[in-house]
């Protein structure tokens, strides 16, 4: 664990971006009812389980048109 400490300044921004993407996707999922494919449960699981790729998939494939 000690070896990882010097890298924390780098790991934190990476984690922030991952979490920010996931939160943005989750907010969008819960604010909207209609999706192009899939349903709410599926997208919540995809976004939470697959880091980075999940939110991207949601924004590109799943997000319905406003």
């Amino acid at each position: 664990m000690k070896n990882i400490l010097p890298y924390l300044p780098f790991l934190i921004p990476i984690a922030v971006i991952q979490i920010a993407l996931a939160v943005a996707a989750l907010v969008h999922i819960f604010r909207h009812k209609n999706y192009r494919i899939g349903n709410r449960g599926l997208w919540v699981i995809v976004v939470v389980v697959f880091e980075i790729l999940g939110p991207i998939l949601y924004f590109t494939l799943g997000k319905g048109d406003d």
Partner: protein
Amino acid sequence: MNGWIAFTKKEFMEQLRSYKALTLIAVLFLFGMASPLLAKMMPVIFSQMPVQGISITIPKPTILDAWVQFFKNMSQMGIIVVLLVFSGTLSREVTKGTLVLPISKGLSRNAVILSKYFASIISWTFSYALAGVTACGYTFYLFGRFSAPHLFFSLFCLWLFGAFLLAVIMLAGTVVSGNYGGLLLTAVVLAVMLAVNVFPRINKWNPVTLASDNSSLLLNAKTVGDLSAAVWTTFSLTVLCLILSLILFRKKKL
């Protein structure tokens, strides 16, 4: 010309509103940051793993490892992300019928294609440059002063491949109808190019080499001259794809 400017503005607006710009910039920035870090931390990660009976010796990571990692991430995941983000840009508007109104009001059909291509290439360039600069900065911080051979040229190669892919997406969007037809056709084109890469004779001209040979450029296994043929074919194919999509889009039923 006025129509082109207005439509380009609308494209940028849409990229912002639909989270496309956000995802692209965030993901490519992430790759730029994570690649040198991963290269640097690889020995640490391996030493944390309890392995019994086997001693793994890993050579000390170098600057080149960082860039090899960068090109590996960018040419695989990065290209997939670009494909996902931009694949629907034309086909979705065609299926939704949102293009009918502006075109019947006098927007030229060429302007639609050109401004879509322009907007997508600008955001690809911006996010890719951001990733490159981030990777430069972090490599400098983690490894110190560095000079990698042909670094700028290999960065340019991957950028050109992205630009080519965007042109293929435009063409696929005009040829195939339906939401995911364009994405599928682009994936098929990629797959064919990868398959063709097996033949060493065509290899030299194949655009895919621009995305796969960056590491060998850095390791001095290839020279700029080896790739120049591929650069020219990619450039001409990009222009060809754009011209074809301009012509085909004129005849497309909206």
